[in-house]
């Protein structure tokens, strides 16, 4: 419950923060470089004199938008394909499973790093400067959907021999009816739990890509990039490493605890 409140605060801060705290994250205050927290800059400034609170809010928006975009794709495409593969079997199953296996061959983020590194520089200017973020989202969705597909497929397969599915089939219900009325309602909660835990991975992945300089480019920023930039002057002002790290840690932990709690609740049923 406490985790939910913290999460709500973070999300609200990302949405409404720039309205309440309307400081431009790219404006440089050259008299205050690497400043400690003060009334003028509540969380201090970075080595270019940019306001850290404003940058954090902007980074948080990037982080959360990528996470929502990618996770929606993973749930719709990944879980969708997984359910279809589990339900119909046959060639759909073969194609989906082989595709997933192929992408699984790469450990974790490696493929996403490769894709963002190779194509990043040339898509940067596309889609009104959002090209990089779209590419990063694409790369993360590409490496993320197989896990969800495999999970959904497994869960679907375990439902198949259950009496309520068999009786629906025996009564002559068509595939759409069985999938929509019997399968989906039973899978929804499991998929929500998996997605909650998965979002954590995506947020960390986006931050890691940001840290490697592959995610949002100026004037936008990524939490990961803020941390790695602040490493450069950590001996002069360590608070600038601390704040983005804390925001990221709190975000990731609340989501993990929520996911863990949901999982326990679902398993107990």
């Amino acid at each position, binding site marked *: 419950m406490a985790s939910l409140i913290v999460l709500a605060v973070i999300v609200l801060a990302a949405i409404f923060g720039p309205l309440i705290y309307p400081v431009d994250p790219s404006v440089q205050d050259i008299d205050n470089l690497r400043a400690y927290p003060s009334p003028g800059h509540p969380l201090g400034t970075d080595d270019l004199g940019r306001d850290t609170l404003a940058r954090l809010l902007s980074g948080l928006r990037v982080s959360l938008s990528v996470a929502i975009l990618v996770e929606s794709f993973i749930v719709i495409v990944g879980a969708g394909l997984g359910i279809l593969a589990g339900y119909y079997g046959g060639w759909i199953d073969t194609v989906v499973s082989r595709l997933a296996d192929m992408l699984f061959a790469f450990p*974790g983020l490696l493929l996403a790093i490769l894709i963002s590194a190779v194509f990043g520089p040339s898509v940067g200017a596309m889609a009104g400067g959002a090209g990089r973020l779209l590419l990063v989202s694409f790369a993360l969705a590409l490496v993320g959907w197989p896990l969800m597909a495999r999970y959904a497929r497994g869960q679907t397969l375990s439902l198949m021999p259950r009496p309520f599915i068999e009786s629906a089939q025996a009564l002559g219900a068509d595939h759409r009816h069985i999938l929509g009325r019997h399968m989906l309602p039973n899978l929804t909660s499991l998929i929500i739990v998996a997605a909650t835990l998965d979002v954590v991975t995506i947020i*960390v992945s986006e931050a890691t890509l940001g840290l490697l300089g592959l995610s949002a480019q100026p004037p936008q920023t990524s939490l990961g990039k803020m941390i790695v930039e602040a490493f450069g002057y950590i001996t002069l002002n360590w608070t600038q490493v601390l704040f983005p*790290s804390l925001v*990221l*840690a709190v975000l*990731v932990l609340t989501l993990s605890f929520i996911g863990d709690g949901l999982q326990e609740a679902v398993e107990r049923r």
Partner: protein
Amino acid sequence: MLQYLARRFLSLIFVLFSITFLTFIIGYLAPGDPIQAMMGSRRDPKVYQQLRQQYGLDRPWYEQYLGYVSGVLRGDLGRSYRYAGRPVWDLIRQGLPVSISLGMVALTLSVLVGLPVGVLAAAKANGVFDRASMVVMLTLFAVPTFVTAGILQIVQVILYQNNLPSLPPSGWGQPVNWVLPVVVLATTSVGYLARLTRSTMVDVMRQDYIRTAVAKGVSRGRILTHHALRNGLIPIVTVLGPAVAFVVVGSFVVENVFRVPGVGFLAVQAIGARDYPVIQSITLLLAFVVVVMNLITDLAYMVLDPRIRV
């Protein structure tokens, strides 16, 4: 068992094909002209054509792929754009020993800490130690490596500024330089290992033969070490695959934060310089490492658990 081995072998071939094919396609589609990049400012159409032919870039893509794979098999990973004409393998070879030893030490540390914590937590499931240690382990697992690195760095800076003994924030060469990178690199896999060990052991402790042992009056410690651990450890072997993957990906971050001259450091420099052949080859190499680790763990699983052989 033979059937299992055959299936495992087929999937290995498929995985190796996927890895080489995907890395090749990404390199093939990469924007920019590699020959142009290699020639730098020199513009000689004749030399250009000659080089294109020499590198086989005028051939159709499937021939190029075959050429790429046969090159990889011969240990030829192509040439760096950044260090004009230097073989990629030369660059990687320099960083490899550093990354391997760093990774091995970190993995050893995570096993040494993760396993005992998981076993002790499972010994008294839902006890105080279980609850507390699992929250800590979840935190270690969930918090990204660079956040852990940042917090440890901050501690070092504060210690240093107060004239207290502290560890060097970055650098390589002395044994003290190892401490922070190893600890940070181990955090994710420690959390992962401990949590998995716990859940596996809790499952084992519910088995009938454990209840039998309790009933006949075997001591708690002996049940844990002699009865539960032997079966409980088997599934844990399979975790080493993913744990290696965490360490491999983590090294990208850790080597850069602590300026460790390994493969991950090289990769990030290559990303900055758009040196695609280097990025491509490192991805290929690391994916290969993880594939081999997965194979080893699968085989180890088979050796350890007779049930799987039938």
